[in-house]
């Protein structure tokens, strides 16, 4: 047998370790480097696995086979409806919800009545469950010390009391650090996650021990069990239990959210919505792993100790001990301790918050005592109330444990507690999705469900324990047969839990719906309904401000905040709010609806929304908005929003259209300018030769007896200017025709080699006159393209005449090359003239622009030759450009595509 001191030492060390982990977690949180990750969050959810999982599952398995799995399948399925969870998280974050009672109360108009009702139901349903955990600890200790019959020790020596005290200390230390309950207790969550790991490790260890240490593996255990008739039935599922199976899955699916400790961990303690992603699968995985070996352990225990062994719950301890694996037994004990303490800690925090905010505070606020106190800082008082609540709840749990002992009222309490919190389901889910749910309906539903639960489950459990007479179970209330507690209205054939669940939920849901449909919500309820159900759609601030009308003074609000949050924290929060509104000093905040809502929100975090509402109402003069008004405002708000979205969309469309128009306008103006320029340039070009012609003609006319030499000269000029003019006009017309696409083209096979030679011939004289060398590298039978011969000749002549204009006399040389390259014919006219700058290379292709240094000489051309040539070449699908460096000559190149080869 193990020494008591050794176990005490190990237990104390473990608890000390928990304290250390919690401390570390809080320190990290304070430093802003939260230790809470998706994994930690998911593991903390495993607080769902209490000593009931650790010990009780094996116990259940010995009688019910695999039916214990229902309790874990339910949560798996529920977690998959993650949309519901996200909505709960969003609502709670947005409206600073501190507990499940707060959630329900807030939704139905911040009702203190509902808050109190939910709290009472929770306390009544959960305190026995806490007692069960303490019982499990006590039982496990007894096994370790070899005391089969756990005699009752005097209370001052009772180790369970010590443990309860340690838990109280832990919870007080790590669960009430801050007043604002929406501040998370990250240290506690870290410790819980740590405990989850310990639980899993311990259980897997004993599972492996039994399966592979005591037996030859899974198959071996099952086969051996199958050989024993009483055990073989445990290997099947009883199809008669179908209804029970389904209802237990439903029950556990609800419990995973509605148990106060679960709500606390999942919703209130959540750090980041995205952690849900991990939790969705990691937590069910945990559940799966911790359950794999339950049935093998149960079977192993039955095989080992015989089919009529006593306490199957403690197989996880007795089996290792029977084989001398004492270290393993201690590990398992620690695992069980983790399971129990985890549940107790979180459940107690959750309950104490509810008791403080939703039960005590409303009552206190009504009493004159608190106003008589006139203390300016009630924050200490609030924390004190929380701590007292924690101690009281644990005390109650311990007392129930001592009093109830072995009674069914304790042992069977697990599912009974589940059924109690299941009563929150209609009002909670209804509140999230159905705007018609009213406070009256919620109260009716809760009361109806609670009463039925009490009658069909709780009281019968007392009766089974012998505390009260069982007449109402056997014969029905007042002897009326169909009011028999466990087969109401003749519904037989279901186990007690399913039976109760069915009737209580029916009553609950029925009352909720019927009463809600027949009552009208008041303004506050309606507003809250909108806020909750539409939480994803509304930016909550705006709705809040819209729905509040009244007057308040900044001083009063600040005093209120200081009273309940403490001056330091109040100043902090006010400062943050002011910064958010863009005001540098919070004392200069405008007192508007927004500020009042902010203050109320802050208070709600400390004392619950119901009480916060009452307090704020007491310091402000509010206009009571009628229901109609509220609905109208909300309606308007929706409309306005829809309208403004429309406007925004229209405005954007308008902007786009304007931008497009502006662009088009620019382009038109540009074109207009270009047109103007063109016309003005053309007129200038035309008038210049005309001027000489006219002047000289007039002079000749005036003076017919002028000198013959002069006359000849003048006439010569007149003729050449006339020619120039004609050329110019022709080119302008040509250009116009080409650009407008009205030119006439004759397309035929054209030998480019011949074209080049022809052009060279026609200009030959000009070249000789200027003494410029003209050479060509042209194939004899030149490449053939489909084009207009005359036009191509025109282009060649243009290029050649340009070249000869610019090269120097005597040294000038121009070379023509005709070649083919990649499906195109390439013709180049290269000269060794002065060359062109990079700018000029593009400018010369513009109309009326001419190359050469316009500062030194005025060439004779019209400035249209190159643009026309380019138009021609491009018409046939080619390109015309120049490559040149200043001082290194110019090379004009044009390409014409070869016709596609016809095979």
């Amino acid at each position, binding site marked *: 047998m193990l020494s008591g001191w050794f176990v005490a030492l190990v237990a104390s060390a473990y608890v000390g370790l928990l304290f250390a982990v919690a401390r570390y977690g809080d320190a990290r949180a304070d430093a802003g480097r939260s230790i809470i990750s998706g994994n930690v969050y998911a593991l903390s959810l495993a607080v769902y696995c209490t000593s009931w999982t650790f010990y009780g599952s094996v116990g259940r398995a010995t009688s019910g086979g695999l039916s214990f799995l229902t309790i874990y399948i339910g949560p798996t399925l529920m977690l998959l409806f993650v949309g519901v969870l996200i909505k709960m998280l969003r609502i709670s974050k947005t409206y600073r919800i501190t507990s499940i009672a707060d959630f329900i109360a807030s939704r139905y108009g911040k009702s203190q009545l509902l808050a109190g009702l939910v709290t009472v139901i929770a306390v009544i349903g959960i305190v026995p469950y806490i007692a069960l955990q303490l019982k499990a600890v006590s039982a496990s200790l007894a096994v370790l010390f070899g005391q089969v019959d756990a005699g009752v020790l005097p209370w001052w020596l009772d180790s369970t009391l010590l443990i309860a005290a340690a838990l109280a200390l832990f919870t007080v230390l790590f669960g009430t650090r801050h007043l604002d309950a929406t501040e998370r207790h990250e240290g506690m969550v870290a410790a819980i996650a740590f405990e989850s790991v310990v639980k899993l490790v311990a259980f897997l260890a004993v599972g492996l021990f039994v399966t592979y240490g005591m037996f030859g593996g899974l198959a071996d255990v099952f086969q051996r069990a199958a050989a024993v008739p009483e055990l073989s039935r445990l290997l099947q599922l009883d199809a008669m239990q179908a209804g029970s199976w389904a209802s237990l899955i439903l029950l556990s699916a609800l419990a995973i959210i509605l148990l106060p400790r679960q709500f606390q961990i999942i919703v209130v303690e959540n750090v980041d919505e995205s952690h849900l992603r991990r939790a969705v699968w990691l937590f069910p995985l945990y559940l799966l792993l911790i359950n794999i070996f339950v049935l093998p352990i149960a079977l192993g225990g039955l095989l080992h100790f015989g089919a009529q062994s006593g306490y199957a719950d403690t197989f996880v301890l007795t089996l290792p001990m029977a084989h001398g694996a004492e270290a393993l037994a201690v590990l398992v004990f620690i695992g069980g301790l983790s399971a129990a303490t985890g549940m107790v800690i979180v459940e107690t925090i959750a309950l104490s918050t509810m008791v403080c905010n939703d039960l005590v505070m409303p009552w206190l606020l009504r009493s004159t005592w608190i106003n008589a106190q006139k203390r300016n800082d009630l924050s200490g008082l609030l924390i004190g109330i929380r701590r007292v609540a924690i101690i009281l709840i644990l005390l109650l749990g311990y007392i129930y444990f001592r009093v109830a002992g072995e009674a069914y009222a304790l042992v069977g309490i697990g599912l009974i507690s589940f059924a109690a919190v299941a009563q929150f389901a209609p009002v909670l889910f209804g509140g999230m999705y159905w705007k018609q749910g009213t406070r009256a309906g919620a109260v009716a539903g809760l009361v109806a469900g609670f009463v039925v639960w009490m009658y069909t489950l709780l009281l019968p459990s007392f009766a089974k324990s012998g505390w009260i007479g069982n007449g109402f179970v056997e014969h029905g209330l007042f002897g009326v047969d169909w009011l028999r507690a466990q087969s109401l209205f003749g519904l037989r054939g279901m186990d007690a839990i399913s039976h109760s669940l069915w009737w209580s939920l029916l009553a609950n849901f029925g009352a909720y719906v019927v009463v809600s449909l027949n009552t009208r919500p008041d303004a506050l309820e309606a507003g809250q309904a909108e806020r909750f159900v539409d939480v994803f759609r509304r930016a909550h601030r705006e709705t809040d401000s819209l729905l509040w009308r009244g007057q308040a003074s900044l001083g009063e609000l600040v005093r209120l905040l200081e009273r309940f949050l403490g001056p330091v924290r109040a100043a902090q929060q006010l400062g943050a709010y002011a910064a958010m509104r863009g005001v540098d000093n919070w004392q200069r905040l405008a007192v508007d609806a927004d500020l009042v809502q902010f203050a109320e929100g802050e208070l709600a975090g400390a004392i619950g929304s119901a009480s916060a509402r009452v307090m704020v109402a007491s310091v402000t003069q509010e206009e009571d908005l009628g229901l109609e008004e509220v609905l109208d405002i909300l309606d308007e708000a929706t409309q306005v929003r829809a309208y403004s979205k429309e406007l925004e969309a229209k405005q954007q469309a308008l902007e786009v259209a304007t931008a497009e128009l502006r662009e088009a306008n620019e382009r038109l103006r540009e074109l207009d300018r270009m047109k103007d320029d063109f016309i003005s340039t053309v007129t200038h070009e*035309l*008038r*210049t030769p005309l001027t*000489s012609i006219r*002047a*000289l003609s*007039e002079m000749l006319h005036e003076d017919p007896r002028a000198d013959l030499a002069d006359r000849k000269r003048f006439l010569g000029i007149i003729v*050449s200017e006339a020619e120039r003019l004609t050329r110019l006009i022709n080119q302008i017309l040509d250009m116009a025709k080409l650009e407008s696409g009205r030119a006439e083209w004759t397309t035929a096979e054209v030998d480019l080699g011949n074209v080049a030679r022809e052009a060279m011939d026609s200009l030959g004289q000009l070249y000789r006159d200027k003494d410029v060398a003209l050479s060509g590298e042209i194939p004899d039978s030149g490449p053939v393209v489909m084009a207009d011969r005359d036009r191509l000749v025109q282009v060649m002549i243009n290029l050649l005449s340009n070249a000869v204009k610019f090269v120097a006399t005597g040294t000038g040389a121009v070379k023509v090359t005709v070649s083919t390259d990649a499906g195109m014919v390439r013709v180049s006219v290269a000269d060794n003239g002065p060359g062109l700058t990079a700018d000029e290379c593009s400018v010369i292709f513009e109309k009326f622009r001419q190359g050469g240094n316009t500062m030194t000489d005025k060439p004779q051309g019209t400035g249209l030759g190159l643009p026309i040539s380019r138009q021609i070449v491009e018409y046939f699908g080619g390109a015309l450009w120049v490559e040149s460096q200043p001082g290194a000559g110019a090379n004009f190149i044009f390409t014409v595509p070869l016709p596609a080869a016809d095979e």
Partner: protein
Amino acid sequence: MSKKILIVDDEPNIVISLEFLMKKEGFQVAVAGDGEEALAKVASFAPDLLLLDVMMPKKSGFEVCEALRTDSANSALKIVMLTAKGRETEVAKGLAIGADAYVTKPFSTKDLVVRVKELLGAV
């Protein structure tokens, strides 16, 4: 003593015709082919009247006119602008800059002569 006329135009043929015309009327004539040359010749030749083309390389007629007008030594100089650009804006600009007359090409030789004589005061 006959008046001196400076002809400024970058078109050689126009220069020839103007030169002949003015010489026939008995004026002393000098020519310049661009704006810079014009300014130089004004300084050296000291004409009484300028026949000034607008569209020229180096310095445009407007620039030349402006330059001459800023120098008060030239206040007696008459400037006649000749140009193919006949838009109203151009005319106004020319006169604003300080030209004494603005003639569009092609011009009538008779009219031009009359104008010149008017400006020079010789009838």
